[in-house]
Structures are given as structure tokens and as C-alpha cells.
């Protein structure tokens, strides 16, 4: 029993190191190949469209609802303290520093990351990745680099957009239901928000984008066993991206809290 448990733990630890090792190797190769000619803009633009433009509807919807919910929940607490004036600043700071980035990253991990794993995974099981190699095209350069660049550039932009929509959601509630004037709300929002809030919020999404790109490509490249394998890899890709994003976010937040308060 104990032996079994230890064996199981050992196996899990080994596969964890194998996974992180593989991700690091893929990331290093992709970084290197990004700066190696030839440069092709067409696949990059195509990926930007898939990551950015196509995610706009769902990101808008989620960010809007989060803004509304956040305003209502904050109002509930602030009304008890009699300090409704703080709602605007709490909504703004929470969204820009934390909720905007993390919600956008999770939505994109579920939407785009899963699609990337499924696509590369089916290419893998139908030998298209082998075929790329026989045509002297490096699969990392050809497939990973445009996705990684698109994700790490589009995710910050999407987040910026989500921040704006979220704050708009909060504004809608405060102005219509809580009788705070529109001018007051915007004034407080822009007065409380510091450049630092925006910067730390957006900076980490660059890394979230890289996490999504490398995890999803890695899982796609390592699919084993047909359609079932593609399904399994897609699930792993989403779960692992979620875990890594949250863990990195925690680390990043703690780092900035203690080092640059």
C-alpha cells in the first residue's frame, strides 16, 4: 500500500519534471528560432486573428459580467460601511490588477490553447508534422513561433480591452442602480488607478500568453494514440495551462508585493 503510494508519487514527480523540462526545451528553441530568418508575417497575422479578434465576443461577455458582479458585491459590503464612494476605486483596481488579466488568460487558455493542442495533435497523428520535417521545414519554427508570438502580443491587448469593458460594467451598475454620478465614477476610477497597476496587470499577461502557447504546443506535439490521444492531450493542455497560469500569477503578485510595494 505504502509502496504503491510512493511509486505513484514518484511517477507523478517524474512526469512533472519531464513535462517542465519539455516545456523549457520547446520554449528555448522557439525563442531562438524567433530571431532566426526567414521571417514570415502571414502565419503570424493569421494567428493574431485567431487569438485576438476571434476571442473578442467571449472576452467582452465575461469581462462585462465580471465588472457587474464585482460592483454589486462590493456595493453590498460598502453600503454596510456607508462608504459607497470606494466602489469605483475597488472595482477599477481589482479589475486592472488582477481580474482582467487572469480571466482573459483563462478564457484564452480554454478557447485558443485547447484549439492549438487539438490542431497540432491531429497533425501529429496524421504524420503531418513528420511531413513538415521531410520538407525541411522546422515544425517549431513553422508552427510554434507564430502561435507563441501571437499569444504573447494579443493577450495583453485583449486584457486591456477586458479591463475597459469590466470597468464599464461596474460603471453601468453604479450609475443606474447606486446613484453615483457618472462624472464622479470616472473621476474616482482614473484618480485611483496608477500606472503601476496597469503595468503589472499587463506585464504578467505576456507570460500567461507564453505559458498557453508552450503548454498547448507541447501537448500537441506529444500526442500518442489517435483521436483518443488528441482528446486526452487537449484536456491536459487546458488543465496544465490553468495550473501554471494561477501558480505564476501567485508568484508574480507576491514578488511585486514584497519587492516593489
Amino acid at each position: 500500500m505504502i509502496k504503491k503510494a510512493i511509486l505513484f508519487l514518484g511517477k507523478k514527480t517524474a512526469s512533472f519534471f519531464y513535462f517542465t523540462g519539455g516545456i523549457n526545451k520547446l520554449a528555448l528553441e522557439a525563442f531562438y528560432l524567433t530571431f532566426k530568418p526567414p521571417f514570415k508575417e502571414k502565419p503570424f497575422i493569421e494567428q493574431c486573428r485567431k487569438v485576438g479578434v476571434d476571442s473578442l465576443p467571449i472576452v467582452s461577455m465575461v469581462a462585462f459580467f465580471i465588472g457587474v458582479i464585482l460592483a454589486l458585491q462590493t456595493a453590498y459590503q460598502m453600503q454596510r460601511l456607508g462608504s459607497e464612494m470606494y466602489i469605483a476605486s475597488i472595482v477599477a483596481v481589482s479589475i486592472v490588477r488582477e481580474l482582467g488579466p487572469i480571466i482573459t488568460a483563462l478564457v484564452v487558455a480554454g478557447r485558443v490553447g485547447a484549439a492549438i493542442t487539438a490542431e497540432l495533435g491531429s497533425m501529429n497523428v496524421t504524420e503531418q508534422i513528420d511531413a513538415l520535417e521531410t520538407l525541411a521545414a522546422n515544425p517549431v519554427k513553422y508552427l510554434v513561433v507564430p502561435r507563441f508570438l501571437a499569444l504573447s502580443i494579443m493577450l495583453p491587448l485583449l486584457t486591456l480591452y477586458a479591463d475597459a469593458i469590466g470597468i464599464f460594467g461596474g460603471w453601468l451598475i453604479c450609475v443606474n442602480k447606486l446613484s453615483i454620478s457618472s462624472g464622479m465614477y470616472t473621476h474616482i476610477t482614473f484618480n485611483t488607478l496608477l500606472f503601476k497597476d496597469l503595468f503589472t496587470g499587463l506585464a504578467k499577461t505576456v507570460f500567461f500568453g507564453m505559458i498557453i502557447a508552450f503548454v498547448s504546443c507541447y501537448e500537441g506535439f506529444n500526442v500518442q494514440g489517435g483521436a483518443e490521444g488528441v482528446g486526452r492531450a487537449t484536456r491536459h493542455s487546458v488543465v496544465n495551462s490553468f495550473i501554471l497560469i494561477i501558480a505564476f500569477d501567485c508568484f508574480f503578485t507576491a514578488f511585486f508585493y514584497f519587492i516593489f510595494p
Partner: protein
Amino acid sequence: MDMIELRNISKSFESHKVLDDLTLHVKRGSTFVVIGRSGCGKSVLLKHIEGLLKPEAGEIFVDGKSILSMPDADMNSLRMKMGMVFQGGALFDSLTVGENVGFSLIEYSSLTKDQIHGRVEESLKLVGLSGIQELTPSELSGGMRKRVALARAICTNPDIILYDEPTTGVDPITADAINDLIRGLHDKLRVTSIVVTHDMKSAYKIADRIGMLYQGKLIAEGSPEEIQNSGNPFVHQFINGLAQGPITDDIKRTL
């Protein structure tokens, strides 16, 4: 002089030994046909020559150079001179037929769009297709996909072509046209080829040498006549497609 040489190659997947101390020589400008039962490792053998799989032991030489110790850049320039037809076609389904066939030309050559279009059309004509450049692979039948894969492999005029069952899944008339095509590339352009096939009629027609793969080794090798009249009971059972014989006895014994 050997264009392709495999020396004592061994390859296993987990505990399953697929290639076992296999040695193979293919002369420059000749066509070598590999026959063998389903699952005996023919596709695995081809993938070793393209450098897609690495053996546990042994050495592989292509055009006199060892590919196992070759830097990536050299491997890529070697691959530009090789073409491979995958068993399942392996067409890129995010690209059109034209972009598939002209992949190397689009990526690496400085030809104009029209020139590439012309070269692609030429290759497609050779495999009996035309006017399908704008279609995507999902709009093609299985046999058409196979032929587009063939067109992609020959589009860059390679010196070496590896065919994995080029005539499987196409009608007999097209199959014979593909045999003629392989024969023609051999006669006119002195292309070195390895062809994996189950189709003995095609094998006799195109081969300079035929080798039979069995339990990880080449158990017989010779000219088409030698193979046809081989005294080897394994070869005899295979080429005549008999249900009874030493191959099936081996399977019964291991069960």
C-alpha cells in the same frame, strides 16, 4: 556506389523489437522494393532514412554521409534532395492542394507565383490530376490524396524518393500509371527510390532489386526474377499470398 546504406540498424518501441540488425544497400539510380507483411516495420524503415526516427544501434548513410551525426542544417539540405510519400498521404489540411504540392517551392525558392503554379500543375499532371489546386485535402477522395502526396514528393525533382505504398487505395488503371511514373523517373532522371508495397505486380514492374522484410531483418534480396523463383519458403508464401506456410506457422507458435 550506394546512394542509401543502412548498417546493422536496430529499433524497438518499448519492448517490441521492430528492426533487428538490419542491413540494406541501395545503388545510385536504382529502385529497391521492400515487401513484407503488415506491421513488419516497412514504414519504420523508411522513416529512419528520412531521419524521422533514430535507431538504437547501427548507422545510416545517404549519399555517402552519415545522417545520424549530421547537424540540422546539413540534414535539411539533404532533405531538400529527398522526397517522401507517406502511407496516409500526410497532406497539410490547413493548406490547399496547390500549396501542399508547391510547399518547398513557396518556402525556399525565389520563383514567382505563376511559375510555382505552373510547376505544381505539371507535377499534378504527372499523377493524372489537374485543375484541383484550389481544393483543400478534405475535399479529395482517398486515392486522390495519395496522388497529391506523390505530386508533392516529386515537385522539387529530388534525387531520392521514398514511397510508402504508392499504389494502395487507387484504382488499377491509376496504379499502373503510378508504376509507369516511378519507372519513368528511374529511367529518365536516374532517381534513386525505395518503394514499400504489398502489390507484387507493381513490385515486379518497377523493381531493380526486391527485398523481403521479416522479423526485423531482410531475409531475402534479389532481382525480381530471383525473388519470383526464390527457394525461400517465407518468400514463396508471401509472393503467392498463401494462407498456409512458414510465416503463419511462426505466428501460431508465438500465440
